[in-house]
């Protein structure tokens, strides 16, 4: 009976669980609720994905009001994939959080952490399911606000300034998005995204629409940390607790990329976005800069978390590059990388959480010789790192393969070479860590570090396993990404 309500269930499960965490304040109760909620919404997402793949787009009328009057939840292959990513990472991170230092740090208020976590999850999932432009903004802000809170939980006082900076930048981005949605509403008189898409060509592409487009792209670029609007991200991810970094790095920017995809391709339409306006050129240039400059910065960082944070900015570049090709293969590559990057960055940040748990630092010099004392942890790091570099048989390879293929299809040789060159930079910054952990002597005081507890290792290894599994058995993400790309390109 509940099957047809699945689109709404994925968001109301965390939405209901969040206040429940506050009502049942015990640490264990809150943990149990969060666990059930994340796993529940993951199960829903899986069923939704199966349904979408089998029978096409799902539509759900909230409150029984048909669109465009009511809010419509609309799930196609792209949405389903984003749902899978967000809820999947959430399900892995929720049990991880229980034993991480984070909860010891917030002590008896751990239920607050779970509440913010669930709200963030709810917001991100909401963005992914809604078919209404303004509703999308509201969900985006729910997730952003709760992520500011989560980041500010970091142990370092710099987490506070990082969170503040993120708040300012994120709010400006969100406000730009609202302006854009307002202008679109002014132009078309509707907020339903499918409806806007239908009415825009009739309305004509006047200055209002162009302004809306500009505001939207800038706003989303801020939210997804597209170079050079990425300044908030490195600090935010490196000073946030590892649990939070893992969750946000794997999901938050992905959802923003989804918004970009949805608006560029579905709402504004391929013709307007890429034929009438020359969007692809600046996007491609920024993407390439993003692939290089943050990567190079990452090579000189000593805090491994910061290395990964800069690497995240670089990886956003890959996704945007895929989008900038505006071809079937390019979009597939971008969407695939969305999925694969969530897996690898999630895994790496979880590993760093385990490292921090034992040695209280993520400094590359403090991690020297760690492979001897924490072999499983560092093996997981190697697994995630190889995927990040794009070694064959890992998920990262598949997305790079598609990306390069897309470049070659377009005949952009230089870009194919650049993609490869930038993954070589990834080799450098990942290898610095591996070399330190495997081929150096540990510092005096860290000779007798114990292996991280299983409760931290298992979630990290699940994601590492995911990296390998989806590097070999690629049919699920590839077919979903292809379906999504086709519907994005065919929607105009």
């Amino acid at each position, binding site marked *: 009976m509940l099957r047809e309500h699945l689109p709404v269930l994925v968001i109301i499960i965390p939405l209901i669980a969040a206040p429940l965490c506050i009502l049942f304040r015990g640490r264990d109760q809150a943990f149990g609720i969060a666990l059930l909620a994340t796993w529940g919404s993951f199960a829903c997402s899986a069923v939704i994905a199966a349904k979408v793949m089998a029978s096409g787009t799902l539509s759900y009328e909230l409150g029984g009001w048909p669109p465009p009057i009511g809010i419509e939840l609309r799930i196609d292959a792209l949405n389903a994939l984003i749902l899978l990513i967000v809820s999947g990472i959430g399900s892995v991170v929720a049990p991880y959080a229980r034993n991480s230092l984070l909860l010891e740090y917030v002590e008896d208020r751990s239920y607050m952490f779970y509440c913010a976590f669930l709200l963030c999850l709810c917001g991100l999932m909401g963005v992914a399911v809604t078919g209404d432009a303004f509703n999308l903004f509201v969900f985006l802000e729910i997730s952003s606000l709760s992520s500011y809170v989560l980041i500010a939980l970091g142990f370092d006082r710099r987490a506070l300034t990082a969170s503040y900076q993120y708040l300012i930048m994120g709010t400006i981005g969100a406000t730009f998005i609202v302006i854009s949605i307002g202008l679109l509403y002014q132009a078309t008189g509707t907020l339903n995204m499918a409806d806007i898409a239908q009415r825009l060509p009739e309305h004509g592409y006047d200055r209002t629409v162009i302004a809306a487009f500009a505001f939207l792209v800038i706003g989303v670029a801020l939210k997804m940390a597209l170079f050079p609007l990425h300044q908030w991200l490195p600090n935010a991810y490196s000073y946030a607790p590892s649990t939070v970094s893992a969750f946000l790095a794997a999901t938050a920017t992905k959802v923003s990329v989804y918004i970009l995809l949805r608006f560029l391709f579905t709402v504004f339409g391929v013709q307007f976005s890429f034929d009438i306006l020359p969007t692809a050129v600046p996007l491609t240039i920024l993407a390439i800069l993003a692939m290089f400059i943050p990567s190079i910065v990452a090579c000189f960082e000593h805090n491994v978390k910061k290395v990964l944070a800069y690497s995240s900015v670089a990886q956003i570049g890959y996704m945007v590059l895929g989008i900038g090709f505006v071809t079937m293969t390019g979009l597939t590559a971008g969407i695939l990388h969305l999925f694969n990057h969530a897996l690898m960055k999630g895994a790496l940040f979880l590993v760093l959480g385990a490292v921090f748990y034992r040695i209280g630092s993520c400094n590359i010099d403090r991690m020297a010789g760690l492979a001897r004392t924490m072999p499983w942890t560092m093996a997981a790091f190697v697994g995630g790192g190889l995927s990040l*570099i*794009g*070694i*064959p*048989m890992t998920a990262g390879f*598949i997305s790079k*393969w598609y990306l*390069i*293929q897309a470049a*070659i*299809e377009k005949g952009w040789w230089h870009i*194919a*070479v650049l993609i*490869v*060159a930038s*993954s*070589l930079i990834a*080799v450098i910054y990942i*290898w610095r860590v591996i*070399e330190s952990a*495997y*081929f*150096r*002597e540990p510092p005096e005081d860290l000779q007798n570090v114990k292996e991280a507890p299983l409760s931290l290792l298992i979630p990290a290894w699940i994601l590492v396993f995911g990296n390998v599994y989806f*590097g*070999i*058995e*690629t049919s699920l993400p*590839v077919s979903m990404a292809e379906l999504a790309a086709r519907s994005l390109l065919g929607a105009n």
Partner: protein
Amino acid sequence: MHHQIYIGLAIILPLLGTVMIWMSGSRPNQREVVTVITSGLTFLCVLQLLPEVLAGHQPELHVTELLPGLEISFKVEPLGMLFALIASFLWIITSFYAIGYMRGHHEPNQTRFYMCFAIAISSALAIAFSGNMFTLFIAYEVLTLSTYPLVTHSQTDEARRAGRVYLGILMSTSIGLLMVGIIWTWAAAGTLDFTPGGILKGKIDDGLVIVLLFLYMYGIGKAALMPIHRWLPAAMVAPTPVSALLHAVAVVKAGVFTVLKVIIYIFGADFLTETGASIWLMYVAGATVLLASLVALTKDNLKARLAYSTVSQLAYIVLAGALATSHSLVGGAMHIAMHAFGKITLFFCAGAIMVASHKTEISQMRGLGWRMPFTFAAFLIGALSVIGLPPLGGSWSKWYIALGAADADQLVFIAVLMISSLLNIAYLIPVFARGFFGPREEEEAQMAGSHEDHGDHGDHGDHAGDHDTATHDAHDASDAGKRIAEAPMLCVVPLWITALGCVALFVYSDWLYAMLSPIVK
């Protein structure tokens, strides 16, 4: 059907061995027994495939399909069979040698050493058997990664620096050039399967063939074409068994093996000669042959000299591939085998000398031959084989490559081959000569004892730092007197086996030729 099992077993057995080695990490004897047994079983598996290949069959094994048209599959053809036989056979020998060497040298982290060694062999076999370029590429990367811990084995700063060069060059060329080439090939031809006659003919502009060939040849960094050869001398910081098996056989041969595979099965020899795209490669390879030999002359460190010799010998095979005539290709393939046996012997000798007398510089080896006659005799055999003198294996492969050059009307390369043989003599024979014909140890001890005398020892002068060690060793030597002080049996026996292998390869080369000839049909 059961041949597929042997393909899988040959690749998986070393990996299982890795796990077993890891589990028996705290019991050295058990660990080494496991290594030896695994290597033996692996060789048997490879051997099981030989009759099939000789009968003209090509057993295949399909594992999984990553993306449509992009699968992991294995196919045994003569070239791969040869490479697999060499790698797995020499692994047995090297295992014994490594036990003697590592124990004699009291190396730390031996478990990691044996584990990585087994993984490296597994990936070398996977390279040998790979049925398409994609599978080969994966195995190629695994080989790079698994040998890195072996290069940095000593964990000193120097080793780490060398490891960085090693990994940097191999990874950046393979990801930066080879992968682009592979993807391009895939985009153009729609397949990556190794197909006799090539897959690119008619699929790609003639003018672009040069670019693609460039991507492949410099993408395969393991072939050590100049100027990307730097990793090979850098890798010499590794323990000698590693240099012997991996950096004279498995890794570098994987490189040139890939070169041959690409030329024969991706481009197609005819296609290359038609378009003339490989002419630049001939000149680059020829230049590498000569330049590397010249550099080898200047090296006083024995392993460094051998490394540059390897660079030069690898370029022979690349040259053979670039000539792309049927004689040269068979000659190139044979050279894989010939050089493998010759060079591993030389490295074994270098290691034996190091274990027995702690000497690494050629200038210190004066008169050492009297103390280690077996080692030095084997060294001579290996050296002559590398130089290419009958009755040793190396002569045949050079002969065929020269024939190939004649076929292709590129007579200048016959000259290159001859000059390089002379250079080989110039840098290899003095090592042997110094061992026997230099002054005896007592004299050396006296000479070393008086410091001012070092200047006239020729190439000794530029190693100022060696004076003290030389003095020290010389005193040890005078204590030991004239007695024979060979390396452990486990070191000496393997190097004689490989030295005899050089002779055997001369005698049985017609068999080798018969096995390899299908690749050019």
